[in-house]
């Protein structure tokens, strides 16, 4: 691990600890300032690790709030990687980090059995014993992955333009419908979607759970595949803000030696791409959907995933929703939902995650919106679980309106 930034850029202002949702909800966590730059000094001297390192959820609110560009979460993730070399992560963490691999192994078991298994009380007890909270809203496996569905999908002929779609593990394994919604809207804007086989999991859950070398291998494969498409001048889109953050910011901080010199590894947010399509006139905003006002679906509560906020590109999903005539999109502005990828599923973190998300849950309950929106798959899972309302990707909502539903 070379090129580790030095901690002295930190001026100890405490803003990151004030804005950290875990420090706010768990007094046992020393907070990002201490576990990040402050403790980094001890690490550089070869002194011991703090016991509360494992509490960080890698939500990146520290990086968002820092006035001095200190890579706080990178210090913490590198420290976790080091700690994992000495003491390998739990089997539970391996399971949660390797969703893509697990899905691949289990692919011959029909989803109905897998989901029956996952919902089956003794299985949940077993998982609970392994450290996956019994109450946590584990998402159900889709009958077919997005990639398989995509293969048998016939897109309209003679579309004038092409884009590449990096679906992200969540859409691929658990929610292929939202991937299909994206393809349908892209088609309508005149784009044929390509979903290459060469991309693998971005590696963010691997880093968060301490599997640094696995993440590095994934980063290498993804960067090679990305170059193949960007060399052809094709934009590579993703629906998942965490994947976009991993490619766009984290690869450079975690694995700087893997980055080819002239490539900035950008995955374009699909909502940002579609607002661009609307501005260029490639996609026209839907007409006011007949009857929508009477169903109450014309009011949407939008939640911004932390990793989207960390990307620094604004809230394109909210902008996209606000381009839909007759739709009122309200910004929840309630901070982190608490799930942070695999964090909120863990037995020892579930309660923290639920406390973190409580502001968002009460905003959802108090809002008269029947439908909520967010770009991040696990945010949506947590929002349905904690806020009790249907939650979709903004593009899925756009598709409903385009189809006049």
């Amino acid at each position, binding site marked *: 691990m070379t090129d580790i930034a030095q901690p002295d850029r930190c*001026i100890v202002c405490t803003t990151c600890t004030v804005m950290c949702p875990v420090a706010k909800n768990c007094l*046992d966590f020393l907070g990002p300032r201490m576990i990040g730059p402050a403790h980094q000094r001890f690490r550089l001297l070869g002194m011991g690790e703090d016991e509360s390192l494992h509490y960080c959820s890698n939500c990146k609110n520290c990086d968002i709030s820092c*006035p001095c560009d200190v890579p706080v979460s990178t210090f913490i993730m590198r420290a976790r990687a080091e700690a994992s070399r000495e003491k390998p992560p739990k089997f539970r963490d391996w399971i949660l980090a390797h969703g893509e691999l697990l899905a691949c192994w289990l692919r011959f078991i029909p989803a109905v059995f897998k989901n029956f298994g996952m919902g089956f009380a003794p299985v949940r007890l077993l998982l609970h014993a392994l450290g996956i909270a019994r109450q946590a809203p584990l998402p159900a496996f889709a009958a077919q992955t997005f990639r398989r569905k995509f293969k048998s999908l016939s897109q309209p002929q003679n579309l004038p333009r092409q884009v590449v779609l990096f679906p992200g593990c969540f859409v691929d394994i658990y929610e292929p419908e939202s991937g299909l919604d994206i393809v349908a809207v892209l088609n309508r804007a005149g784009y044929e979607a390509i979903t290459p086989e060469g991309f693998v999991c971005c590696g963010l859950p691997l880093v968060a759970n301490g599997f640094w070398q696995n993440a590095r291998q994934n980063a290498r494969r993804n960067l090679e595949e990305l170059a193949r498409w960007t060399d052809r001048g094709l934009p590579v889109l993703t629906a998942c803000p965490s994947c976009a953050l991993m490619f*766009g910011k984290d690869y450079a901080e975690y694995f700087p030696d893997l980055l080819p010199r002239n490539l900035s590894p950008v995955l374009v947010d699909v909502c940002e791409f579609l607002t661009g399509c609307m501005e260029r006139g490639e996609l026209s905003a839907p007409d006011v959907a007949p009857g929508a006002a009477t169903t109450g679906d014309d009011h949407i509560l939008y939640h911004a995933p932390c990793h989207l906020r960390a990307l620094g590109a604004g809230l394109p999903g909210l902008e996209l929703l606000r381009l839909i005539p007759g739709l009122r999109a309200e910004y929840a502005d309630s901070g982190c939902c608490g799930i942070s990828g695999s964090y909120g599923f863990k037995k020892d973190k579930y309660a923290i995650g639920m406390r973190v998300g409580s502001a968002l849950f009460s905003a959802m309950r108090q809002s008269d919106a029947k439908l909520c929106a967010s770009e991040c798959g696990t945010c949506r899972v947590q929002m349905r679980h904690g806020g009790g309302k249907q939650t979709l990707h903004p593009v899925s909502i756009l598709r409903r309106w385009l189809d006049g539903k």
Partner: protein
Amino acid sequence: MKPTDVLVVGCGLAGLTAALTAASRGKTVRVAARGAGTLAIGNACVDVLGYVNGEIVRGNPLDALGRLPEDHPYRIMGTEAVVKALRFFSRLCDENGLDIRTESRENLWIPTALGSFKPTCLCHPYMDRKSLQGHDRVIIAHMPWLKDCHAQMIKTAFARQKGFRDRELRIVELAAFGGQTHRNLTPLDVARFVDTPDGERWLSSQLANHVAQLDAGLCTAVLLPPVLGVERHREIRMRMTRNTGCTLAETVIPPPGVGGLRIRHALTQAAARAGVQIMENTHIVAARTQGRQCLSLVAENNGRGRELAASSFIVATGGFLGGGVVASPGKARETIFGFDLDAPERIEDWGAPDLLDAQPYARLGVKVNGRLNAITPDGDARWDNVYFAGRTLAGYDFASEKSGGGVAICSGHYAAPRC
């Protein structure tokens, strides 16, 4: 990304005030924020002007503006603008559930964690020293399990003050909440606990028990670190006042100050409601200009630029801390447009020997005209649609003058209608 009427850079007190002022006038507003802004760690008070040339400002701080140098931001904007801005800000806080105001328009003195008093102007009205001195008894809440909480020091310092001579000063100790932790607890941790129903009950019942053991009939105030909630401060304080029968006051403390977070919460909620879009973690690194017009600002985006176009721009990027101004030996530079700032050539002239004196480097910043446009050494506006606000401005030393919050609010509020 669609152009907006106004693009504000910075989400501290100046940036948020500018954004909300522009939005209240029907403009579409986007805020590009790098970091959460210093407001997040500050206190619940707005200093307008506490000292001029080292002399304390008593009475109405607006009456002292005339004693400031002509190139001071307050002098450039004028007294009327300051009055209007402070009124706008107080109303904004009130509408969003927070009492940050001035009753008398005069400077008042509020207690610090050390038991000293500092001058300020807008604050929670019950923090005023006069209000504390109007009580027969002041109970100082001691939380020995809390960082930087020294009730005995406060009591000793109060006892030396004339206004507290014949008052009963009494320390009561509050029991800790939660289990064991190896983390340093701060008043923010307590305030967040008090924001929950359990926490409110925990504090309210302890205070009520202590008060019940004292002789009734004495008009009593309780002085606490800022622990009376963050997001539900107003209602919590109201209920606890009723339960204890005492006036509840809080000290100002070193970061994290809790009160600033209350203000930030109120302002960001207002911004979300007003449709102001805050782009977080957005680092503006350059500007595209044409003659005296700015066309767009460029955000750093993984090595590529992302252009943010608008009709007008308000730059509230802060000073050295916020990254709006950077210095190298003998030179200071504004970071977005990249022009040099007037700075002493000899580095020895940047600082004064006494740390607590006014510091020349603290006045370094962007020189502006009466519209808050940056000006060239000849006095011409550099760009007609770019306005500077808050600590980026030259000509004031917020720390020694105690004028930071006031200049931030006023320049933000002053810049917005010019967009």
